[in-house]
């Protein structure tokens, strides 16, 4: 009996510690922006809006959030359109060595945006005059996300019956019509999943924009966060917390919206 009670106590203590580990930073994130002089402690806020005023007055803070929107939405649109077409083709056309190609793509994708590819990518961007350009960054980020996106979407496409498309084909629909009228509506939850995944990925990406965009007016929020220091070289906690809150809200809202509208259906990467 005592052993059971002790076990329970131990279990709940462990759960409490784990919970605290994850909730305290979140608590800090929602309280610190409303506190006059925030420290690393979680304090009851005095509900000042001075910190928000400071962020508004910061010359690059709000524009950087807009830059993040441009980069992530731009990449997500490209990723969804291109991955949908590629995944459809790969799912429906029998090519020799198709599966090998898919696995190679997946493997490469972890390298392309990974650190190993930084130098060649940087040089490529310089050569193509795409350095310090948001378009260039969008293309590179898209390239990095595409393989995994194709891989996931192909799974969605594989699980939709072929007879819908064949029926449309017999009625005379062209391949693009089939994709628009039949395939896209059927895999819409999959497309939503990929779009959210791409947005979240780009939104939180620091390294690529940091390397490829030197003009501070083009930099996204993730990079600007890194510049929020006081004159003394200390992290500016009031700015950081406030900006951090503003930075996270859009992603949370997007997630809630899409999840409510489509419901997430993540199939595993590999079937059979």
């Amino acid at each position: 009996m005592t052993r059971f009670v002790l076990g329970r106590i131990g279990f709940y203590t462990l759960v409490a510690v784990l919970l605290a580990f994850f909730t305290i930073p979140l608590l800090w994130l929602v309280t610190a922006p409303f506190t006059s002089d925030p420290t690393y402690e979680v304090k009851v806020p005095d509900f000042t809006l001075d910190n928000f005023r400071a962020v508004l007055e910061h010359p690059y803070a709000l524009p950087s959030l807009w830059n993040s929107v441009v980069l992530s939405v731009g990449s997500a649109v490209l990723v969804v359109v291109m991955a949908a077409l590629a995944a459809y083709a790969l799912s429906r056309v029998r090519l020799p060595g198709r599966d090998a190609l898919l696995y190679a793509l997946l493997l490469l994708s972890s390298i392309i945006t990974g650190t190993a590819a930084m130098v060649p990518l940087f040089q490529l961007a310089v050569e193509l005059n795409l350095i310090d350009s948001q378009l260039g960054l969008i293309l590179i980020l898209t390239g990095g996300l595409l393989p995994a996106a194709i891989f996931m979407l192909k799974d969605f496409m594989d699980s939709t019956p072929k007879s819908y498309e064949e029926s449309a084909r017999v009625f005379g629909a062209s391949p693009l019509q089939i994709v628009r009228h039949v395939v896209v509506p059927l895999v819409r939850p999959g497309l939503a999943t990929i779009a959210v995944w791409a947005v979240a990925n780009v939104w939180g990406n620091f390294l690529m924009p940091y390397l490829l965009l030197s003009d501070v007016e083009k930099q996204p929020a993730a990079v600007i966060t890194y510049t929020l220091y006081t004159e003394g070289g200390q992290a500016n906690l009031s700015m950081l917390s406030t900006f951090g809150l503003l930075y996270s809200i859009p992603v949370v809202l997007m997630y809630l919206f899409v999840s409510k509208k489509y419901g997430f259906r993540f199939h595993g990467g590999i079937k059979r």
Partner: protein
Amino acid sequence: MAAIELRGLTKVYPGGVKALDALDLAIPDGEFFALLGPSGCGKTTLLRTIAGLETATGGAVVIGDRDVTGLQPGARDVAMVFQDYALFPHMDVTDNIAYPLRIKKVAKAARHEKAAEVGARLGLDHLMDRRPGQLSGGQQQRVALARVMATQAQAYLFDEPLSNLDARLRLEARTFLKKLQRELGVTTVFVTHDQAEALAMADRMAVMEAGHIRQIGTPSEVFQRPANTFVASFIGSTPMNLLDGVARGDTLEVAGCKIRVPVSAEGRVPDGTAIVYGVRPEYMTYSAEPADGAFGGKVAIVENLGASHLVTLDVGDVIVQAVVPEGSEPAVGDDGYALPRRDRALVYRDGELV
């Protein structure tokens, strides 16, 4: 509306499976044609090759006066009903029926009007706003038919459209489909593995085996005079008696019994040839008394067929089956005699009808 002609049509799948083997077939304009055969014999492949969903390895498909062998499915002007109906789950019934017209760039109002008209004809008026997922199997089948009717194609191709329905609904749908085809007069190829369906609905039918057509004819020709032992054993709700025997003058020696040569084979089987004697259980007269030219043996099994019974006799070391009307069925173990009808019995030599 147009005739369909297949010339030496061959389909070899990438794995090397020869699903269609130099198949010739002519279906006249307006005919209701049934394709029947065991699973895997190539019925679906044949239909899909006519539709253009599979490219022919050899031979030609001619619809009307056009050779369509190299054309895309959409250019062949045929309409197909798939076994699972393939109704688009994200569109309501109206949009599903109107989809072929949408592809033909008919204006929205016009195509919805047409969908409503066709839907009403098939008794779907109160279901037009539903999604396929909210319909019963029979209703889905009618939506699939309506969608095909909205196209005004040269030919209709049906791949087992009734197999997803329960037995009762299937009988209704059978009559309905037959009537509809009569009214529309569109050439229709209908795949089924249910022989009762083929016999009941078709103007003419083909029996396939392993990529070949084994017999083409009207349902009564195929039922009464199967051209070979394969068709003979495949067609019929109770399997035909097929018994090995030898010709002896104007009698046949079959299963140790002396049987008179059937009318259809009179004078055409030389003395001493090995033959297969075929007679349907329905064309046997059963009696408890010995009769001249009858198979005699012991009753082994009696199966209830509803309005009649199927009696299995042990005759020597083979079995002979006869259908007995209700009320006069024997008991297991009785001596019984089954007399074949001379005008209905058949003789096969080397597997082919004599």
